[in-house]
């Protein structure tokens, strides 16, 4: 093998926090060979992003220090003067980030921003730089690049912005591209496109890629070699196939066991719990257990939604006249039994969250009925609505935003109990303690404030709060999407336990197909505000009928390098917008039952 492009030896990076030096990366060594893709995987706080910043020397000198040796083609980057380093950045090493909107300047056109890099780094004159920038936009397969050249960042979609970022990064033909979670903020079909683009460009340019991610599926899809990091240390460093097939370190095993894999569920009719794993030695304690059958199929449905429609007006012009409407939810109908989990899946903007909020009437629906326990929620007066809402609770995506930062956890949990007069005094305290125990936290933790908890713990608290009023239905809006893999598995197990214990019905809103396959009984796929396919989980996943469902399923990265999907064509489809003109009327379509309980939307 030829000499490595990047060689990191004994890297140590420390930050000064409150007067003390804390190591973020300790004694890390790895190599990146020419043309190779190395993935650094780890959960939050593992030091993977700090490693990327250290290589670029973007750690602030005042509060951080980097030791060790980082050699780019034999040249020690840590020994270079700042002036030289500036030439290395962009020219030899380029970087793309998670959030392309904040990485692009909103007041400059994308063409200008790429051309600027070319003029600065490659010394091209204006005309040459613009011509080259246009060529770069075409290279990253942006459709009608010429028209896009003079667009501003906000006029592009997230996927297109990430393409622009890649074009900017590649403008100077770097030897190494560092990609820090470049697809995390993107929808799964867009993520597949971007990963494919990076692979293709890598072949064309012959550059090396250092790919930083938390997603084992993405790793399997793209990496030749994997470095697993945990709390600033390297645990494993091996070719991808070896890491996935025979992981050495316990943590890697635990991490892999906690990853839901699409297709894992063949032959399982019911949701499957994640195995319990000791994160210190990686021992799997007990095999994954199928959850008990909690669905009360014989009873009348707990929730009946029919023809639910939610639209938002878009006003414009001087007089604020109605210009168009966002058809967020269009004619959505489904039922939910007690003890059942119905998953609403779809990509951003498909209306799945709006559906959940419309059911609780946190957003007023425009039409349709929502019958909950026999009462039509949409027709209730204010007092009755408050009464019904006690039985319908919600868990949110961001555990940091869903708790009031100025209330102790105990008082946040006690508040609903006291307000609704369910208990008083010591009895209320006991209930709070019991709720905390139920979600696996110690009752003594009630005196603490939300910022003293980790993300996973906060999500447990949010779940406990939702349970305080003993609801029958819980709407979980991307409830585990922001959590690390291992924490995600624990929270999902908790949700399954609670379902078994209290007979909860879940409306599980998620974009993550693998998680949905693991926990749901039935699945509804949403696209542009409509349910395009609805059916038993096994039927939808093993025999998808609607083209969109198939596309969605094929885009999900599978955490197994052996099953790395064949090169897909370089698609540039975007998710269409649900904004319509005032006179728009929906094409006449209906749900057709193709198999018992399996419905697909088809044109009439």
């Amino acid at each position, binding site marked *: 093998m030829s000499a490595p492009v990047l060689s990191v030896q004994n890297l140590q990076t420390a930050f000064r926090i409150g007067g003390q030096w804390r190591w973020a990366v300790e004694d890390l060594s790895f190599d990146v060979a020419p043309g190779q893709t190395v993935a650094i995987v780890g959960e939050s706080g593992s030091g993977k992003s700090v490693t990327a910043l250290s290589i670029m020397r973007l750690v602030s000198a005042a509060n951080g220090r980097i030791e060790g040796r980082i050699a780019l083609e034999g040249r020690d980057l840590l020994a270079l003067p700042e002036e030289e380093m500036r030439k290395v950045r962009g020219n030899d090493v380029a970087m793309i980030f998670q959030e392309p909107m904040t990485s692009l300047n909103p007041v400059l056109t994308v063409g200008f921003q790429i051309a600027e890099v070319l003029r600065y780094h490659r010394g091209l004159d204006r005309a040459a730089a613009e011509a080259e920038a246009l060529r770069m936009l075409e290279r990253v397969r942006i459709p009608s690049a010429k028209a896009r050249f003079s667009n501003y960042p906000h006029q592009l979609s997230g996927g297109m912005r990430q393409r622009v970022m890649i074009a900017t990064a590649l403008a100077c033909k770097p030897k190494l591209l560092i990609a820090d979670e470049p697809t995390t903020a993107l929808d799964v079909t867009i993520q597949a496109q971007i990963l494919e683009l990076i692979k293709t460009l890598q072949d064309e340019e012959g550059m090396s890629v250092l790919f930083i991610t938390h997603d084992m599926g993405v790793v399997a899809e793209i990496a030749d070699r994997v470095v697993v990091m945990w709390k600033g240390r390297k645990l494993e460093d091996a070719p991808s196939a070896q890491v996935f097939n025979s992981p050495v370190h316990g943590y890697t095993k635990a991490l892999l066991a906690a990853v839901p894999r699409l297709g894992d569920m063949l032959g399982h009719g019911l949701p499957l719990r994640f195995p319990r794993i000791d994160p210190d030695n990686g021992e799997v304690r007990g095999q994954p257990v199928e959850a008990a059958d909690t669905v009360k199929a014989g009873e009348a449905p707990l929730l009946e939604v029919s023809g639910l429609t939610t639209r938002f007006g878009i006003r414009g012009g001087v007089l604020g006249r109605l210009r168009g409407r966002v058809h967020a939810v269009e004619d959505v109908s489904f039922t939910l039994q007690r003890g059942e989990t119905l998953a609403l899946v779809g990509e951003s903007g498909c209306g799945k969250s709006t559906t959940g909020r419309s059911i609780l009437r946190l957003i007023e629906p425009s039409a349709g009925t929502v019958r909950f326990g026999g009462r039509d929620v949409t027709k209730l007066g204010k007092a009755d609505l408050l009464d019904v809402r006690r039985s319908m609770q919600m868990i949110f995506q961001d555990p940091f935003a869903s708790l009031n*930062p*100025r209330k*102790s956890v105990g*008082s946040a949990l006690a*508040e609903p109990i006291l*307000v609704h007069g369910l208990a008083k005094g010591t009895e209320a305290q006991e209930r709070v303690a019991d709720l905390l125990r139920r979600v696996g936290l110690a009752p003594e933790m009630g005196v603490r404030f939300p910022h003293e908890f980790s993300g996973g713990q906060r999500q447990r608290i949010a779940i406990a*709060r939702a349970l305080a009023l003993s609801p029958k239905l819980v709407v979980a809006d991307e409830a585990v999407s922001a959590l690390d893999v291992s924490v995600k598995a624990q929270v999902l197990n908790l949700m399954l336990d609670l379902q078994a214990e209290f007979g909860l019905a879940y409306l599980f809103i998620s974009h993550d197909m693998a998680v949905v396959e693991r926990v749901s009984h039935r699945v509804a796929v949403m696209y542009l505000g409509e349910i395009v396919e609805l059916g038993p989980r096994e039927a939808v996943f093993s025999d998808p009928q609607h083209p969109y469902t198939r596309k969605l399923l094929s885009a999900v990265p599978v955490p197994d390098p052996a099953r790395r999907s064949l090169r897909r064509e370089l698609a540039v489809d975007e998710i269409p917008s649900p904004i319509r003109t005032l006179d728009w009327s929906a094409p006449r379509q209906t749900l057709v039952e193709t198999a018992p309980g399996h419905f697909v939307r088809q044109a009439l």
Partner: protein
Amino acid sequence: MSASVHDAAPVAPPRLRWLKATISAFNANKTSWVGLVIVVAVILAAVLAPVIAPHDPLEQNILSRLQPPHENYYLGTDYFGRDILSRLLYGARISLVIGIASTVIAMLAGSLIGILAGWYGGRFDVVVMQAMDILLAFPSLILGLILVAMLGPSMENITIAIALTSIPSFARIARAPTISVKERDYIEAGRALAFSDARIMARHILPNIFPEILVMASLWLANAIRTEASLAFIGLGVKPPVATWGGMIREGFENILDSYWLVLAPSLAILIIVFALNILGDGLRDAIDPKLKGER
């Protein structure tokens, strides 16, 4: 009402930490300590005026009128032979009482209006905030002047007039963070938990926007004191012979050419307290802002 026992003693450590964080942030901006010390000193002087004033502020002594500062009268005497230092100390009481009372009234009313407008939004918000903007378009002195002229120059009326001039500012400062906090998931969770609107506003929104309102109050206190002095200067203050800083400047103005100290002492007093309140307010703002960032 007691939310739960968890709100009792064990909560103290995080609160103390908050206090410590505020003190250390105050330390980062040393001048704010100067502001705090001066404000506390002025408040003490006003409270202790009956004890420390060397003379009765209303006692006229025709024989020793218009005397320059010397050992009997540290700051001299005015046209009626009253001790300027004593009048200054008693005048601080009027300034502080009117300033603090009007700011508290404005803070309560303005925050209530701002939170309601921000929470309910829509047409209610537009109408209320337009009304506030109209009030804001008047210079506060002109508005105060009109109101006092209409109501009559008593201490209560002056307080109400000054409060009215600053309500729009508080409404604005309360409305903006209400709108951003309203979008947070924990507010939505509160709605899902079937809490009433009043409860969400009082128990969940108010504590989150209170620091910003408090900073605004410290800055507006200076403004209120200045407005009170201005009203007194143009003759619409608390009626003579009660000592007010603005009134002292007005009385001294007639003799400014040969007895400059009549005007100098109250002018400096106003300058110092306004300056001190402003740097204290800036310090408070610096102390509270980074903490909010760290918490999110």
